[in-house]
């Protein structure tokens, strides 16, 4: 039993943290996060150069990571810096491409940017419920494709011969209706109309489910990083801000709420570690649900404990708060995953 990061991961996380600190300061972050294409080519290149994409692929397959703990190391840093780059797509694409025996070099080098397109408007979060039909071309609609603006390739699920299959669609051949996200970053609607596609995996149900779980774990880790930031920032604020002639941190009602926030964050971190270790669908569902609920609570409490200043665009906390609330809506919200866990009792 050992909860220390390995030296390799610690080094990666440290250099990632340093890079994000120097490249994605909050002002630059905001300019990237809230303006199309929600992507900073130079920043992405720098991220790729320190090798973080290798963390998503096992050594056997040519990478330098591939475990849940590798994702943790990377995405905690992304969350702490609130980096809007489309890394989530890469984290989910990597195991799919590996499974399909595709060349991983474009992904690993950062040259190709992958986005996963599985959800459809009437059944978000449920790849199996999609109605897009597949073949040499695809026709249908995929919704909430994260990183759609920046993507060079889409990995698209579609039904083929009764099975859920995985296709690759090139960005230049795809019709994307992009939209900006209120918490920063971009998504898009992928409008498929006899769009040329190449089948990567004819029977991809399990592989897609697993890829989505990688994505969910990444979101949990991102949340943990962002929650740590919010806690530390709120604590600093409570120590420095005075009202009615005393530090507001000296008010016991606020102290107890800080303790509850910290305890909740440690619980969220713990279940994220569990999910990273097990990487089974039940553990990931438990993590995504608990983290989703905790992230919202931390966001709301951090704003409330700050008062008005926490409500302003200029104060970085507001952007962390938005991200923490909105990431619950990605890849299945808390109630969606609670219902999945509950369904297993039946």
């Amino acid at each position, binding site marked *: 039993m050992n909860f220390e990061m390995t030296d390799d991961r610690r080094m990666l996380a440290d250099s990632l943290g340093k890079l994000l600190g120097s490249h994605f300061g909050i002002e630059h972050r905001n300019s990237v996060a809230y303006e199309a294409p929600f992507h900073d080519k130079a920043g992405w290149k720098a991220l790729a150069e320190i090798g973080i994409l290798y963390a998503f692929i096992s050594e056997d397959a040519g990478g330098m990571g591939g475990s849940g703990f590798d994702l943790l190391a990377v995405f905690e840093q992304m969350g702490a810096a609130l980096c809007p780059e489309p890394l989530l797509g890469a984290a989910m694409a990597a195991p799919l491409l590996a499974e399909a025996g595709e060349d991983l070099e474009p992904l690993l080098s950062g040259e190709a940017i992958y986005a996963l397109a599985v*959800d459809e*408007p*009437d*059944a*978000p*979060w*449920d790849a199996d*419920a999609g109605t897009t039909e597949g073949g040499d071309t695809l026709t249908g*609609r995929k*919704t*909430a494709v994260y990183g759609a603006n920046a993507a060079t390739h889409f990995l698209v699920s579609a039904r083929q011969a009764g099975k859920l299959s995985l296709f690759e669609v090139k960005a230049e051949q795809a019709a994307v*209706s*992009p*939209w*900006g*996200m*209120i*918490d920063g970053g971009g*998504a*898009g*609607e992928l*409008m498929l109309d006899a769009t040329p596609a190449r089948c990567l995996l004819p029977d991809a149900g399990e592989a897609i489910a697993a890829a989505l779980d990688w994505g969910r774990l990444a979101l949990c880790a991102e949340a943990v990083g962002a929650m740590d930031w919010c806690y530390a920032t709120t604590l600093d604020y409570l120590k420095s*801000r*005075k*009202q*009615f002639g005393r530090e507001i941190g000296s*008010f016991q*009602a*606020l102290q107890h709420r800080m303790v509850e926030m910290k305890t909740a964050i440690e619980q969220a971190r713990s279940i994220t570690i569990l999910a990273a270790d097990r990487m089974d669908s039940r553990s990931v569902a438990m993590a995504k649900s608990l983290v989703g609920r905790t992230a*919202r609570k931390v966001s*709301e409490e951090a*704003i*409330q404990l700050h*008062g*008005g200043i*926490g*409500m*302003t*665009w*200029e104060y970085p906390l*507001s952007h962390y*708060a*938005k991200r923490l*609330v*909105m990431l*619950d*809506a*990605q890849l299945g*919200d808390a*109630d969606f995953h*609670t*219902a999945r866990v509950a369904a297993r009792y039946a």
Partner: protein
Amino acid sequence: MDLSYSPEEQAFQKEVRQFLADELPEDIAARVKAGGEVSKKDTERWHAILQARGWLAQTWPEEHGGPGWGPVERHIFDEEAARAYAPRILPFGLQMLGPVLIKFGSDEQKAHYLPRILDGTDWWCQGYSEPGAGSDLASLKTKAVREGDEYVVNGQKTWTTLGQHADWIFCLVRTDGSGKPQEGISFLLIDMNTPGIEVRPIRLIEGGHEVNEVFFTDVRVPAENLVWEENDGWTVAKYLLTHERTGIAGVGFSIAAFERVKALAERTMRGGKRLIDDPLFAARLAEVEMDLEAMKIFNLRMLAEAQRVGHPGVETSMLKIRGTEVRQALNDLYRRALGPAAALIPGEAPGGNAALVAPEDEAAAASYFNNRKISIFGGSNEIQKNILTKAMLEL
């Protein structure tokens, strides 16, 4: 016990409904329903329509142009207006300054300012909060120094809602710094066009611009703009803060918010069934609805008491807390009901076939974030709890 409105109140309710059906412009109601910003022009149009009916200055005595309503009539109007998606009546001139002038103003001040509020000549904003003060209002630092017939004002106000549109600002300023924080404060009316005033926007969390910082640099204000006595502005300030809190629960807003969530959940599909048929979502909605239904009665109890004894009790603080909790819970469910589409920035959605959500639902997440303010501004919920502690617990 009798929870129903009296025949007169019921007739009044009908009258309000009819008025809203006839007079509330459809385009404005559509914009309110969509949760977007209501323009200055929209507000001015609505104010004029209300004033034409004599219903604008709802808390003013009849002699000054008020409609002569009690708390129940005001509540009925609020509830019906919210249900009909009418824009809110801007409180700064009508609900804040007006009553203050009526109680503390000189005859000249009343004669000059009140009619201009009613006819829309003057758009007022509020200069209470200062940076670093928050709920600790009395710690204000903006200084006004008397020089002959003028005050010279220096300092800064913040959280000035819609100050970008304002012609005038009413301010608490420090005219004497020697005593306790509550002493030495004065209440001053300042023309926003006076040299030395600068308004800078504060962008809020969801991106909107509704509040501002207002900077005062050697701003010269005629001494006749002082309301009440110099150094006794705290009396005025307290009156303004505690006056007319009967609408504090925001019941009408919550009713409208509940209807919105329910309607959305009825037409949202999740994996082959309607979201409203999902037992877990429906249970969460039901629990908030119960809290809302309870709050409606709690609010009526407070109104009945206010009508009976002439002023609302300390229950208003409980209603403020619970009212904001219910609204925020509904905002939260509304956003969640949209699923991943909740993330899109209002007004920036792809159109045509790629549309993600109905236009009226686009602002769900933005409203959720913006409404985090309601438990902070106007006396944070923590402050309300402190007030209640003092009053109820006598500790």
